[in-house]
C-alpha cells in the first residue's frame, strides 16, 4: 500500500474516538445543510408559483351592465403590465359554485345567480403591479369589492425569507464548527506524530510526503460524512417525500426522485471533500512546522 495512504489510515485508526466524533458532527451538519437547501429551494419554487398565480379580483355591483364590465376588460387588456383578464358573469359564477358543491344539496338549496356578483380576474406580469389596480378600482362607484390576497402572499414571502436567512445562519454556524472539528482532529494527529514528523524531516521527507496523509485524513472525514448524510437524507425523503408532494400539489417543484438523490450526493461529496481539505489545511498551517 502507498505509504501516504497507509499513514493517513493509521492516523484515522489511532485517533478512532476523534474520528467518530468528527464524522458524527460532520454528518449531522451536512444533513441539516441538505435539508435547509432543499427547504429553501422548495419555498422559493412555491413562492415563484404563487407570485405567478397571484391575481386581483374586482367584483362589480349587480346594477352594472355586462357591456360596461366587458368594456373595462378591453381597457385592462390594453395595459402592457397585465398578463390576462378573465370575465366571470353571474351565471358562470353560479355554475362553478354548483359544480364545486354538487355533493352538498343543503348549500345549493334556493340558490340563484343574483347572489353572485360579476367579476374580473386580473393577473399581472409582475406582482408589484397588482396594488396599483387595487388603488385604481377600489374607490370606483360601480365596484363592490376588490379582493387581493396580498397579506397571504406577503406572509409566505416573509416565511420563505426567514427559512432562507435562518438556514443561511445555521449553515454558516455548522460549517464553522465542522471546519473547526476537522482542524482539531487533524491537529491532534499532528501533535501525536510530532516526533515522527521530526525524524521524517531529518531523513529527507518532502513537505508533501509529510503533509499529504493529514490532507487525506480530512478528505476522508468529509467524504465519509457526506455519504452518511446522504443515506439519512434519502431515508428522510422516503418518509416525508409524499407529504411534501401533497403540500405542494399542483406546483412544479423539487422532484424527489433518483436524480435528486444523485445530484445531492455529488454536491455533498464535493462539499464534504472541500470542507475536509479546508480543515486539514488549517491544521497544517496551525500545528505543523516545516
Amino acid at each position, binding site marked *: 500500500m502507498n505509504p501516504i495512504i497507509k499513514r493517513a489510515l493509521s492516523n484515522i485508526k489511532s485517533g478512532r474516538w476523534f474520528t467518530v466524533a468528527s464524522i458524527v458532527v460532520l454528518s449531522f451538519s451536512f444533513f441539516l445543510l441538505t435539508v435547509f437547501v432543499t427547504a429553501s429551494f422548495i419555498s422559493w419554487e412555491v413562492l415563484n408559483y404563487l407570485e405567478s398565480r397571484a391575481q386581483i379580483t374586482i367584483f362589480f355591483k349587480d346594477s352594472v351592465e355586462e357591456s360596461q364590465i366587458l368594456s373595462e376588460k378591453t381597457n385592462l387588456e390594453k395595459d402592457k403590465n397585465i398578463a390576462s383578464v378573465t370575465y366571470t358573469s353571474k351565471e358562470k359564477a353560479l355554475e362553478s359554485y354548483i359544480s364545486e358543491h354538487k355533493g352538498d344539496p343543503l348549500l345549493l338549496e334556493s340558490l340563484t345567480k343574483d347572489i353572485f356578483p360579476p367579476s374580473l380576474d386580473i393577473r399581472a406580469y409582475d406582482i408589484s403591479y397588482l396594488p396599483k389596480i387595487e388603488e385604481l378600482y377600489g374607490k370606483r362607484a360601480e365596484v363592490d369589492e376588490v379582493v387581493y390576497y396580498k397579506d397571504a402572499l406577503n406572509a409566505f414571502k416573509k416565511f420563505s425569507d426567514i427559512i432562507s436567512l435562518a438556514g443561511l445562519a445555521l449553515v454558516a454556524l455548522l460549517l464553522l464548527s465542522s471546519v473547526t472539528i476537522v482542524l482539531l482532529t487533524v491537529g491532534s494527529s499532528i501533535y501525536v506524530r510530532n516526533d515522527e514528523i521530526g525524524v521524517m524531516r531529518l*531523513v529527507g521527507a518532502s513537505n508533501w510526503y509529510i503533509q499529504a496523509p493529514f490532507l487525506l485524513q480530512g478528505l476522508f472525514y468529509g467524504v465519509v460524512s457526506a455519504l452518511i448524510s446522504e443515506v439519512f437524507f434519502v431515508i428522510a425523503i422516503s418518509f416525508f417525500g409524499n407529504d411534501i408532494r401533497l403540500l405542494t400539489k399542483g406546483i412544479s417543484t423539487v422532484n424527489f426522485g433518483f436524480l435528486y438523490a444523485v445530484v445531492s450526493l455529488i454536491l455533498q461529496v464535493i462539499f464534504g471533500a472541500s470542507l475536509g481539505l479546508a480543515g486539514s489545511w488549517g491544521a497544517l498551517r496551525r500545528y505543523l512546522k516545516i
Partner: protein
Amino acid sequence: MILFESVSKRYFDGTLALDDVSLEIKPKEFVFLVGSSGAGKTTMLKLVVREELPTSGKVIVDGEDLTKIKSGSIPDLRRKVGYIFQDYKLLYSKTAFENVALSLEVVGKKESEILKIVPEYLEMVGLIDRQKNYPFQLSGGEKQRLAIARALVHEPKIILADEPTGMIDPSATWEIVELFEKVNNWGTTVVMATHDFNIVNMLKKRVVEIDKGKIIRDEPKGGYAKVKKK
C-alpha cells in the same frame, strides 16, 4: 564537502552560538568537533542540515549555499546527510525494521526494494536478529546502532553524529566508533561532536575545538589533550 565562511549564529534569545567561524571539511574526512557544552558544536551540525540558518556568513554543503537554498530543496539536501543524535530519536511505536525502512519510504523506494535493503543495513550494524523488536526492547548501544543504520540506509555523503556515545556504556561505545570508522573508510565524510576524550585520543583524526562559538584549535591528527589541560 562542507564549508563555513565567516559564519555567525545568534539565537532569538540573544545567545551568540557561533562567532565568525570559518572551516572547510573535505570529502571522506573524519572530523571530531570537541568543546564544552554550549560551545556551539550542535549549532554547527544543525546549520549543515539547514535546521538553522546562519545570522551572517555562508554555509556550503556539497556545493550548495544553504543560505540561498529553496525550502523545496531542503529534503534533497537532507538525503545527502545522515544525522545521528545522542538520544537516538527513534520511533518507539515502530520496530527496528520499520525505523530503518522509514528513511527509504520517505524517498519513495518501492516496498520490494525496502525489503531487500533494510536487512542488509541491519546486518551491517549487527541487529538482523532484532529487526522485529521495538526500540524499548533494545540496549543503549543497540539503539544507537539502529539509529546509525537508519542514517546510513539512503547512502548519505555525510554523516553528522551529535554525541553518539553520550548515553551508552564503554563497551558499546567502541562498537559505535568502529562502525563510524568503517563508514568513513567507504568514503563517507564523518563529523562527530563528542565529549569522549578516549575516542578522540585513540582515533587520531582531525580535531576541531570550539569554545564560546569560536574555533580555537584545528589539528589534522589531534587529540582531546589540550582541552584536558585547560
